[in-house]
């Protein structure tokens, strides 16, 4: 059920500002692809075009083509709502719904879409999603407590559970561990390992070791200077990127040298 993503000649704009220019790449199905690059080079921007979240921002638009399993996402006949049901997303900052309990948060994607669920199906979905997000053991005794009462790392895993409860085919993660301690980080990395057998995962990270640990492929983005658009410099298997990258710039970035 996982899908591969093909991107060709993608230009991404905020109003008149060209933020990312000319990206062409293929993200393979059932594997983890990491996006790395300096701050402001457009990783988040690029990630958000993969489930049409980019256009939520007023004035934001894209040119070019993104297709998931051969279906072009930016076709006029495509409903962005359907796209987002197929391509789930976990944000950099955990954002559980403050009015809902842990249980309701996990079911939010289904309940908000008015899916009728029997009590036992709902229970099963909640347990499966929370197990999947490595959170079940910590919260199984307080499912009806507010989701905001969890620690930051637990909230992030709750958001992952919420994203996988709707069973998307692709999962986008924007720096999911940037606010987390090493233990929660490693819990989430374990989770990514387990999830990749079912999902296509794209993860943005600033942590080189994390990219090396979790991903099969790595794409390096860079920008030529302030105000210039970000570009894809190279995309290769992670092993190759971290040992013998094709580009000088990649090598410099990974080893901590710039310019």
């Amino acid at each position, binding site marked *: 059920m996982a899908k591969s993503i093909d991107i060709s000649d993608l230009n991404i704009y905020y109003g008149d500002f060209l933020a990312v220019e000319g990206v062409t790449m293929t993200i393979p199905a059932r594997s983890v692809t990491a996006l790395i690059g300096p701050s402001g080079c457009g990783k988040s921007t690029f990630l958000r075009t993969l*489930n049409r*979240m980019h256009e*939520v921002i*007023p004035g934001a638009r894209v040119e070019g083509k993104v297709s998931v399993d051969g279906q072009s996402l930016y076709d006029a006949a495509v409903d962005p*709502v*359907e*796209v*987002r*049901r*197929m391509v*789930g*997303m976990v*944000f950099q*900052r955990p*954002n*559980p*719904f*403050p*009015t809902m309990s842990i249980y309701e948060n996990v079911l*939010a*994607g289904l309940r*908000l*879409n*008015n899916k009728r669920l029997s009590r036992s199906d709902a229970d099963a979905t909640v347990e499966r999603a929370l197990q999947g997000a490595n959170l079940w053991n910590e919260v199984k005794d*307080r499912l009806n*407590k*507010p989701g*905001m*009462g969890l620690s930051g790392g637990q909230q992030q895993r709750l*958001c992952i559970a*919420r*994203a996988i409860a*709707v069973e998307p085919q692709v999962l986008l993660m924007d720096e999911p561990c940037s606010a987390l301690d090493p233990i929660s980080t490693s819990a989430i990395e374990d989770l990514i390992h387990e999830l990749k057998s079912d999902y296509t995962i794209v993860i943005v990270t600033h942590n080189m070791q994390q990219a090396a640990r979790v991903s099969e492929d790595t794409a390096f983005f860079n920008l030529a200077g302030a105000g210039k658009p970000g570009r894809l410099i190279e995309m290769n298997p992670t092993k190759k990127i971290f040992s013998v990258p094709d580009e000088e710039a990649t090598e410099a970035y990974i080893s901590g040298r710039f310019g």
Partner: protein
Amino acid sequence: MTDLATPPETHAHVPLRHPRLPSYAPWLVVGLAAAAAALVGLTLGWSLTGIVVLAMVLHVVGLTVWSRAVENARAATDRLVTSLVWVALTIALVPLVSLVLKVVTEGAAELNGRFLTWSMRNVVGEPGGIYHAIVGTLLITLAATVISVPVGLLSAIYLVEYGGQSRLAGWIRFLVDVMTGIPSIVAGLFAYALFSLIIGPGTQLGLGGGVALSLLMIPIVVRSAEEMLKLVPADLREASYALGVPKWRTIVKVVLPTAMAGIITGVTLAIARVIGETAPLLIICGSTDSVNFNLFNGQMASLPVFIYSSYTQPGTNPEILKGMAWGAALILIIIVMALNLIARLAGKFFAPKRGR
């Protein structure tokens, strides 16, 4: 590498202990200032107001000077600003407290079963009741709320979620601001003219009062709801969109519940703002001595209009009606307070839950 254990010699010793005024100092100064002001005022034959003003000035100056002498300049400034804030607070509370005291002392004697359950129908020269006015006020305000909340809330949703910075939204904001400034008497005249056109010249009815009050309420509801909706973090909307939830459902199920506590508070404040309006109701609802439950037909009494006419046309036995006016005022204040209390409770109940 410098050794962190021993600080560099160049750092001078910084003393952290300074002389401080005792914690009871402000109260002591209040007492002394009051005593001194009383002494001066009584010997010179001043009024109470003069004494109080002098006491406040003495307090502010005295505390600051004392602090300057014992503590340092920063502490003295702190004392000065703190005392000024307290003085301002006291001044602000004086009218409020004296108003409530006056209404309670004058009105409490009037409250009894007869006062609350009788109307003024066929009551001449003896105490009657204000049941008709209470019913009228509640019904008219209810009608105003039923009209204003959907209109106001939907406008606010348009402004925040759909309009954004568009020109139409800008115009709506401008018109809402203009509406905030409409004098209430004009709203009454508008409703009167409207129902004269629809039903017939000179029509007076309760619903008209609701329409007039809703003109005053809508801008308050729009503005407060708009502020509350703007406070809902964009993160939550994005979280909902990312789950494949359509926009309208995101608004209904995520944005509104998150902002609900604030919206309810805003609506209650808007109700409290219009429930005491007199002028528009005088025009469009008229006044009557009997109970009228029908918003769509006939004149309807209300508490503010009752108070007004009891004072201006007290009839054969002025003392009785004036007393009843105070009682009605007390009831009006109690209703407003009850509304505020309900808003607080509702706010607590709907507020996003935190903690374990």
